[in-house]
């Protein structure tokens, strides 16, 4: 399994080095530096040299590296690296060179806790935080009892939850966040449109609550009543480890004892009947070799009671663009030469509206035609209380032996960031 774990900065300096198994020497870090950090042409996240394999993940100019000497489980190694990153994010707020350097003692504690002899151990952030803290802990009798409790919980069947949670007001917040992936051809045909949904939950519930969660999942609805029209077809669901998977497999009920606080209850994927919240119609014409004209229209495709916010269009321009003259009715548009794009920002746009940008890009005449990849137009946006898949939370039931009343809140958000792409041809 994982024989060693390293963190390098961009220059290839070792920030963290931990050998889990005796089959490697510390100097193996130099090999990684030479082969990967100072090699400009690395085309694979796994490099195998002899019998040593380096798995690396990049985050904010850092390399998080796991080294193995066996036929390791590649998916597990990468999942472990990403888990480390999310733990570090939760502990330090951000993961960069400074954060790593400032907290190296804590990081050593953490990576010793989440991995033993190369085998990943409990890595639930909530539980880790209960016994690995920034203040130093004294080993007193009280601490001994406290640790017994924590350790029993950390290894138990509900390792994600303490059993002494108490709240005056019992509340649960459910956020349904959908990310729309779109690629549309220049002719306007949809090449691919699908929704990556995440259901995030913040549970502030006392005791050991047993929750049941219901969606307008087509498979469930069809069983209950024939011909319901608003049901959604989910291609696939994935659950937090608290959800009982065999129950879902047999009857598609989602039941679980939630962790305390915030967690991601489930992810799902839907490809049928995706309602695209924004329609973008680009028209790009070349006028001679010195000018390109853009007319880009954005139509909102949802109820006029709702509105889209933070809409950002990034419209690529040729590499030899000198200046762009933009005219917009709504929002602000600006040419960003460093990235070769026109950025059009619209703070807020009502449903059922249509706005247009017209722009003219002036080009310098070049003797050799530069190779330009013609990136697609990329759109970011957020629409509150709207789901592109049509998913609705039907119920969230909480059962607890104290029989308390609980309040539940549900919010919906559909967004796109970096994956809503419309191709351009001219």
């Amino acid at each position, binding site marked *: 399994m994982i024989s060693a774990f390293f963190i390098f900065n961009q220059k290839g300096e070792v920030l963290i080095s931990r050998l889990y198994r005796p089959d490697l020497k510390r100097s193996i870090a130099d090999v990684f530096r030479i082969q990967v950090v100072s090699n400009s042409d690395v085309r694979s996240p796994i490099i195998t040299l002899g019998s040593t394999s380096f798995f690396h*993940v990049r985050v904010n100019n850092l390399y998080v590296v796991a080294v193995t000497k066996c036929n390791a489980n590649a998916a597990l190694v990468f999942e472990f690296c990403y888990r480390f990153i999310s733990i570090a994010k939760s502990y330090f707020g951000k993961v960069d060179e400074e954060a790593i350097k400032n907290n190296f003692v804590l990081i050593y504690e953490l990576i010793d806790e989440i991995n*033993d002899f190369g*085998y990943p151990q409990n890595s639930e952030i909530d539980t880790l935080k209960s016994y690995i803290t920034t203040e130093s802990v*004294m080993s007193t009798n009280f601490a001994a009892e406290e640790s017994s409790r924590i*350790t029993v919980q950390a290894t138990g069947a509900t390792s994600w939850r303490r059993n002494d949670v108490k709240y005056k007001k019992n509340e649960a917040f459910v956020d349904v966040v959908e990310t729309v992936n779109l690629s549309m051809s220049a002719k306007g045909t949809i090449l691919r449109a699908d929704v990556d949904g995440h259901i995030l939950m913040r549970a502030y519930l006392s005791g050991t609550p047993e929750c049941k969660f219901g969606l307008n999942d087509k498979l469930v609805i069809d069983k209950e009543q024939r011909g319901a029209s608003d049901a959604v077809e989910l291609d696939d669901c994935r659950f937090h480890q608290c959800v009982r998977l065999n129950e879902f497999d047999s009857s598609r009920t989602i039941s679980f004892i939630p962790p305390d606080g915030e967690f991601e209850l489930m992810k799902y994927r839907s490809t049928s009947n995706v309602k695209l919240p924004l329609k973008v119609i680009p028209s790009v014409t070349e006028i001679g070799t010195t000018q390109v004209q853009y007319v880009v229209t954005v139509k909102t495709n949802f109820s006029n009671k709702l509105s889209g916010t933070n809409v950002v269009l990034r419209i690529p321009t040729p590499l030899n663009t000198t200046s762009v003259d933009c005219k917009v009715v709504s929002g602000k548009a600006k040419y960003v030469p460093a990235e070769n794009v026109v950025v059009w920002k619209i703070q807020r746009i009502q449903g059922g509206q249509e706005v247009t940008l017209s722009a003219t890009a002036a080009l310098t005449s070049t003797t050799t035609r530069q190779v330009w990849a*013609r990136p697609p137009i990329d759109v970011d946006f957020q629409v509150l209380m709207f789901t592109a898949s049509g998913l609705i939370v039907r119920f969230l039931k909480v059962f607890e032996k104290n029989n308390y009343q609980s309040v539940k809140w549900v919010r919906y958000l559909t967004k796109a960031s970096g994956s809503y792409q419309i191709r351009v041809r001219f």
Partner: protein
Amino acid sequence: MSAFRGPPRKGENFELSADLNSEYREKRKDAIKKVIANMTVQKDVSGLFPDVLKNMQTDDIEQKKLVYLYLMNYAKTQPELVILAVNTFVKDTDDPNPLVRALAIRTMGCLRAEKIIDYLCDPLQKCLRDDNPYVRKTAALCVAKLYDLKPELVIENGFLETLQEMIADSNPMVVANTVAALTDIHIAATASGSTNDAFHITSTILNKLLVALNECSEWGRVAILNALARYETSDDRESEHICERVVPQFQHANASVVLAAVKVVMIHMRNVRSDNLTKQFVRKMAPPLVTLLSNPPEVQWVALRNINLLLQKRPELLSNEMRVFFCKYNDPLYVKVEKLDIMVRLAGESNVDALLSELKEYASEVDVDFVRRSIKAIGQTAIKIDEAAERCVNVLLDLINTRVSYVVQEAVVVMKDIFRKYPATYEGVIPVLCANLDELDEPEAKASLIWIIGEYASKIDNADELLGLFVDTFTEESYPVQLQTLTAVVKLFLQKPDNSQGLVQRVLNTATKDCDSPDVRDRAYIYWRLLSTDPGAAKAVVLSHRPPISIPRTTVSPQLLEELLGEISSLASVYHKPTETFVGRGRIGIDSVQRKSSDLADERTAAQKAFQTVAAGQQAENLLDFSDADGAEDGQQPSGLAATTMLASTPAAANLLAGTSSNPLDDLVSIFGNVGIDASAAQPAAAAAANSLGGLSFGASAPSPMPPATPSVLQNTSAQPSQQDDLLGLF
């Protein structure tokens, strides 16, 4: 704390030593942190061992952890001093705080100093039966650590039996770690040649594992699933039962759990007899596999490589899902390349139009490598789907019209393959290709175009002029181009003898007199003699019918595919290569291979696999040897040349050898590897003749990374014998 990483001062260790002995607690702790910081950047702080050791006995757990971290690093270098720490360790394993107990047992296992091991057994015995599950799960792994260090001790103390009992533990995490420890020991025992099974999974254990599977942490699930994969079922009922219990894990959020579950189901599905059930399992597998693509790119890549394998076994798996594999503009290259390959696998009559317009789109991107692969993919599609060939050719023509040099060259290479698959169908394209003659500067593209001209010499009016251009520059061209020119001119002469006699004279003259490649000279001599003795026989040989090409459904041999499917999600499945090719002790010497192959003389396939293994391992070793390699490995193995020659003597082995690549990245090379190089030996008869008559064994040219002639000659072995007979008759 960043101050700890300041530049080294003079006598830093001296100062640290003073601080470590300070009377103030804070000062001592800060000093320990500085020591750890120095250790991280590989400064030698081993001299501070006694000073650090003094700080071990403390109530401050954080400080204790730091001291332990230091000890784990330097215990090996200071075996005499480690003994001083033993007392504290043993005392700590009795501490009322379970965290301290676990920490002590965890660290003791990592110290790797002979002196301390003898003191480890008693506390370990105790901790394995600790009340607290956290201590038990840590102790379980400690047994594996001890086994790695001194297996005898584990056996003498009966720790193996204790572990086996612990599988029945009430705590799922303890079960998971116990399984991990037993598996680790099992692997170590197998590697060292021990025959008795350290971790035999009985049906009782199986049931316990299936129960624990639903309760333990994600990582624990992977460990348990791995153990389930090893279980040998007694009948099909049991296999079905395992699959049914494992299928719910497809819904887990962790990609490694999903893939581990896929692995278990793929393995146990082999014994499921009911077709309906099999179909049901496969159907349930598809959506989770697609969902893996919404993970970070590295995980996506692992998933894609595995999906590629799964599709080779079960092409129907994702038949309606091609669109999800469309490349996103911002995907990393390694992801895009894998997606391309899978898209071609999923291509069919119904989705080919969407695929072609995507591929055309990719061909206009900037990354040269990706563009070339996209064009190759168009060619593969044309060869795979007969009905779509014409559309593919049209797309290729559009691409040729862009006149971007590398696009044109790749398109020409691909066109040659299309001509081979569909002879005499797209002759209308030839003028367009010939018009781009001047653009070509890469040998492969040139050779391809020359082959096309030679093949259709009778239909191209100015074939002699075009070939004449290459004859003029004959000596400056690379060998593959020379070989092609030679053959193409002979073809031209056989079809239009009237106006090309001068040309053929000239090329044979140049090839036999001014050329320094023996292959080219030999081929020229053979043609010369053929033409001078019996032009009819020359026609039979040079213009013989070629077997059509097709896309292989699998990129690895069926045996290897089965093996890799049993290792889904592992490095082997990512590289599509057997484990032995890249894992340490398993790299087999030539002796053991010969033994292995003679043992299995009946099982031809097994022997082939062994050859393939050693060949690939050999190549990997030669290329990837770096300073850290163990000295013992060097010298024991014959040089790469010797190994290759030996292998090449059996055609089957050579064939496999050609199929294995030495560089992991070469895996990215498309499945077209073989077809692509066919051009250089498009005249199988001639090439075979050259090789066999010239008395050249393949081995002679083997040291170069696989001579292009080899695979194609082998591919055509069926045609070879008869033609050889013809030739022998002539002499």
